[in-house]
């Protein structure tokens, strides 16, 4: 576990209020140097509010927050000089070229022109956009814009990179390419903070994560330990070609450690999926589709909140 000296971000009873609405309800988080840390939860869980506070563009309403050991309410500018931020929506200059977007942004950090040019060349190669450097950003695909936004966030060689929903809206191929780039940064020792509502993303990228729901942290740990704690090893998904799945609850509950009935399917939490499938068929039930899979953070979230992530 972390000691406070190596903590890049330290939050204690952190609160964010907007009028009467409490978006973040007193969370405790400690993120270490070189760590890849995830905030997981559905829309409205308080992830973005937390990210904005860590990015030093939003003042905490209560509790304490320190970033690099500095106080964001009075040393925001110093903190932001050492951060890279990838916001949920791209904020690129659409009318300018790919290269200009990076070179001009470098000026905000007071980098000399020569340094800005060199880093731009470097980062365009990293983002696999070297051959598009003179194109207008408007003409890039969604995945390319996302990679450019990440490249831009790296122009000041940040010690901490904050990514808010980095792959939302991207196709699978673009997502995997992005993950691969983020892996590379992680290997280089950059501390990453990622918010996501994709479980597979969190499993792929995060060393440690917290699950947020309605402004509070409901669980934390490594992806594996969360699955071990809150879930069984495997999950069997059954669909029946009928309007309601409730009627199967009684008959199925004897076959599994836990049964979750969703509107479109039934989930059985078990240790051996294949054995359970056989047992289902042996008991005379005939689901229209049946699938055994390893359990994931999605199941953890369902268990913790009683709701699915992407609604």
């Amino acid at each position, binding site marked *: 576990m972390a000691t406070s000296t190596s903590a890049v971000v330290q939050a204690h009873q952190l609160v964010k209020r907007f009028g009467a609405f409490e978006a973040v309800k007193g969370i405790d988080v400690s993120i270490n140097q070189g760590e890849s840390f995830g905030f997981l939860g559905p829309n409205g869980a308080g992830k973005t509010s937390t990210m904005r506070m860590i990015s030093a563009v939003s003042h905490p309403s209560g509790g304490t927050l320190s970033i690099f050991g500095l106080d964001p309410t009075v040393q925001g500018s110093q903190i932001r*000089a050492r951060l890279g931020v990838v916001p949920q929506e791209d904020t690129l200059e659409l009318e300018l070229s790919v290269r200009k977007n990076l070179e001009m942004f470098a000026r905000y950090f007071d980098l000399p022109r020569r340094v800005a040019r060199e880093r731009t060349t470097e980062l365009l190669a990293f983002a696999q956009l070297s051959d598009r450097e003179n194109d207008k950003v408007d003409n890039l695909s969604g995945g390319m814009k996302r990679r450019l936004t990440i490249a831009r966030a790296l122009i000041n060689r940040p010690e901490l990179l904050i990514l808010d929903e980095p792959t939302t809206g991207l196709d699978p191929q673009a997502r995997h390419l992005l993950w691969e780039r983020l892996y590379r940064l992680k290997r280089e020792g950059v501390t990453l903070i990622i918010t996501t509502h994709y479980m597979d993303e969190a499993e792929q990228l995060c060393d440690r994560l917290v699950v947020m729901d309605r402004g509070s942290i409901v669980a934390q740990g490594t992806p594996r330990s969360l699955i071990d704690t809150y879930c069984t090893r495997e999950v069997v998904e059954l669909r029946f070609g009928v309007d309601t799945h409730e009627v199967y609850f009684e008959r199925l509950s004897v076959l599994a450690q836990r049964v979750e009935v969703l509107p479109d399917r039934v989930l059985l939490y078990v240790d051996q999926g294949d054995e359970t499938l056989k047992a289902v068929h042996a008991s005379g039930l005939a689901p229209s589709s049946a699938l055994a899979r390893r359990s994931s953070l999605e199941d953890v979230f369902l268990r913790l909140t009683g709701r699915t992530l992407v609604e």
Partner: protein
Amino acid sequence: MDAPLEPGLGWARWRRSWWYHAAFYAETWRGSVASSVLFPFFYLAALGVGVGHLVSQGAGLVQGQTYLHFIAPSLLATTTMQLGESESMWPVLASLKWFRTYHAAAATPLDPEDILYGKLSWVTTRGFAMSIIYTIAIAIFGATQSWWCLALPFLGALITLAFAAPLVAYAATAESDVSFTTIYRFAFIPMFLFSATFYPISSYPPYLRPFVQLVPLYHGVALAREAAYGTGSFAVIVTHLAVLVAMAAAGLWWGKRTMRRRLVD
């Protein structure tokens, strides 16, 4: 990774925003450069020479001067006002809402005030540059009568800032551009027409003159004329200047608040 970057002092930070706005303009200026350079000449030729010809044949509205002499300084004032207006509403809402590029800037060492000062100082720089072109055009048309005309570029910069500052502040509160069109139609077009721009304030009936004097642009027009002719008493000049400086100061005060509210919470 690298040693922490020096975040820089406040004054150094807003210069970065000025530079960014300037670099952005340098990348996208091609559409506006022709209008910036040529329009002063077009306006002076059309209104000063063309309409002026009719005026001199008519009732002799302007005493002791040609109509060109009369109209040239006021065109500088109206043009710099329009620059301050057009650069401050739509572009600011676009940077805050449609493209969110000011949010990107706010994630860097820049504070919201730095972004505001950078924007306003850049627009003011453009007002200054545009006024230099105007002053040259006025001189070429022979409508300058005093060395005080060298003050015209500075006055043009002040007029730009006096209108840009409150409008940037207002734009930072807007959620859509619907109100911008209303402001343009019901504030700027009438100001353009009725600030003693095209005929002297003495052509208004006496009971209307105080209302004209309440119009902000009137003070810019009057000052520009005084600079071009080298006339005007000290007290009158100070009064006109005070109005413009007060508008700029109020706009800055308000803008610091609205920009901060919009970019950080």
